[in-house]
């Protein structure tokens, strides 16, 4: 007690400021740099797993593998980010990709369509699916959650029926086909990544640029932030929304291409968890489910966190039950953090 009374005035002053001080400063910093918190989580978790896995985690081989395991997730998460930025959500992103990749692979396998054409056809399919989503959301006014919940089931059943529940092998696709280009390897010693990883990186650079530097990018943010305000500010929000869903459709096709390279085959049984994983990556990456705020860099970090957690926990010998527990906790923390940061504004 006597100590605290005798404390120098400087301390007392800083104590006084702390009532709305350091914590609020952190809050403001995180608000200003939304990718900061996911970046910290990624770095921290890497350090923890490097220690907990007895050095297996940071082997170049494993790091390369984790990038390969992230590629499809990261690609689809770009589309998911755009849609969530408009305050929507796409529950069917994974099955839409799988349906597209079945079409692309079957075209090549059953009809001998060259890779470029099959891929172009996949783009058309993806764009049609996206336009379908966007059309229902804007013209009929159904919530994106409902629309894509419905299409999730529809695409799954269409894909199974169309693909006859078979796995299309790389031999059937044709090992020289452009479709399998995404499985090609770049190697530096033990570290190796596939061309699919490079496709994902290019996609992030391209869309990071589009979101930050074009009027369309700003309109996406504005539409998600406050749709009515955007409309009154002269933005054609219907066009923005449809275009976002169509861009997501284009990304289904890119994801399909990367997935065919990743699995070196095509099957509706592949990528089982990816629908929700994309949402997880976006949310952990600091993009708000309420729309209007978030960064693609955050999503990329979020996707890497998902892989880091699953692979890191495995290499550390943690029981499988706790792997999903950890991811689930991370989602809750991320969303709670988002809410807290948003309070700054209010």
């Amino acid at each position, binding site marked *: 007690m006597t100590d605290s009374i005798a404390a120098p005035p400087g301390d007392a002053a800083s104590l006084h400021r702390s009532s709305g001080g350091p914590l609020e400063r952190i809050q403001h910093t995180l608000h200003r740099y939304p990718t900061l918190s996911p970046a910290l989580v990624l770095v921290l978790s890497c350090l923890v797993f490097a220690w907990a896995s007895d050095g*297996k*985690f940071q*082997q170049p*081989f*494993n790091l390369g*593998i984790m990038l*390969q*395991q992230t590629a499809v997730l990261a690609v689809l998460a770009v589309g998911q980010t755009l849609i969530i930025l408009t305050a929507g959500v796409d529950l069917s992103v994974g099955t839409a990709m799988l349906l597209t990749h079945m079409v692309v692979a*079957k075209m090549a396998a*059953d*009809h001998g369509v060259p890779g470029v054409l099959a891929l172009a056809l996949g783009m058309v399919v993806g764009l049609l699916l996206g336009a379908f989503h966007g059309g229902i959301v804007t013209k009929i006014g159904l919530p994106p959650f409902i629309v894509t919940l419905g299409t999730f*089931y529809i695409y*799954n*059943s*269409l894909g*199974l*029926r*169309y693909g*006859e*529940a*078979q*796995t299309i*092998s790389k*031999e059937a696709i044709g090992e020289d086909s452009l479709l399998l280009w995404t499985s090609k*390897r770049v190697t530096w010693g033990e570290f*190796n990544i596939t061309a699919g990883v490079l496709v994902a990186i290019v996609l992030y650079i391209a869309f990071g640029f589009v979101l930050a530097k074009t009027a369309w990018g700003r309109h996406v943010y504005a539409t998600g932030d406050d749709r009515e305000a955007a409309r009154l500010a002269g933005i054609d929000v219907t066009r923005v929304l449809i275009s976002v869903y169509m861009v997501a459709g284009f990304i289904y096709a890119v994801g399909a291409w990367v*997935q065919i390279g*990743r*699995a*070196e*085959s095509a*099957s*509706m*049984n*592949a*990528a*089982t968890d990816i629908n929700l994983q994309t949402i997880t990556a976006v949310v952990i990456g600091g993009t708000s489910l309420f729309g209007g705020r978030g960064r693609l860099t955050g999503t990329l970090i979020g996707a890497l966190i998902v892989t880091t957690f699953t*692979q890191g926990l*495995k*290499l550390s010998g943690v029981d*499988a*039950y706790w792997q*999903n527990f950890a991811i689930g906790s991370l989602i809750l923390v991320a969303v709670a953090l988002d809410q807290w940061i948003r309070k700054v504004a209010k």
Partner: protein
Amino acid sequence: MKNLSVKRRLVAVAMTSALVLAACGGDDEETAEDAPTAETAAAEPTATADAATAEAGGDADGAVGVSLILKNTSNPFFVSMANSAEAEAEALGVTLTVAAGREDGDTDSQIAAIEAAIANGDRGILITPSGDAVIPALKAAREAGLLVIALDTPPSDASAVDITFATDNYLAGQLIGQWTAAKLGGEKATIAMLNLFNDQVVSVDTQRNQGFLNGMGILDEYDPSGNGKEPPTGSYSGGEYEVVCNEPTNGAVDGGKSAMETCLSQNPDINVVYTINEPAAQGAFDALTAAGKADGAIIASVDGGCDPGLRLVADGVIGATAQQYPGQMATLGMAAIKQLADGGAAPEVTAGLDFFNTGVALVTGEPMEGVESISVEEGQAICWG
């Protein structure tokens, strides 16, 4: 009154199927030549619809009704089962209703199908149970006088069914384990176990896994509580071993690949890979190839489907696989229901087992002394899928 609601449900199924068929109609026509299964697969929901109309009209003509309830329609294993059942139903004059869950583990759809079978006055149910949740419904069916036969997967409570028609999965695992031990010839075994799941205990998964380890001479007894409980190091019948990992694959190519990658991250010197099925084996092989480790590794698997299964054995990707016969399960099961319905005897279990063994055979291009096997060509002549 109850029949009405069942009828409605079946009509709904028929309508949905019709929609889907309409959407895919063009594709089916185009691919029918390339893939013979296209037509039968497309015909399947129609058969359901036909059955619905037939039964809604009453069972006055005395046709025996049988419901085949599958885990899902996405696995070729079950598709093959359905195809065999449809062919057999036609031959026996049985009215067949095929139902399935949306995915593995979807017991709600299976329960609805069991209830529909009871309401419909079917004489028997053939089911691949997706989980223990179907057990009360199956017991109700038995009480209602239906002959209930589990296919492929026995329920955890044996009294839920009259009998199980299945592959002896433990034996299947033993066969590939013995073959692998013989093939190693005393070399140290560094083993990756690529299972089905790691977050649920499924008997098929556990039996194959432990059968394999038993065949290798690592485990003595069967432990139904799950995988991964073997000592991580020790000696097998031919020398030293180390189990590096037990990873889940979901029985799919990409799952097998990711699992193998994780195992290689833990130990790059793996030279024995057990896989739950051949798609997982394909994925494991891709991961090994990518890491430049494919040459020294032995891959052993279970299933024996035509493709990718036996193709991979023929190509030397998989060293040996234990082949099972899903078509047999469905046709033998249906024949048993028909026989009982016609006043014949009820089916009985295989001697020494608690189920009816529909057979398993080791298929390999490299026969090992002391391990009975058939050639790839023989296997291909009777494979499923």
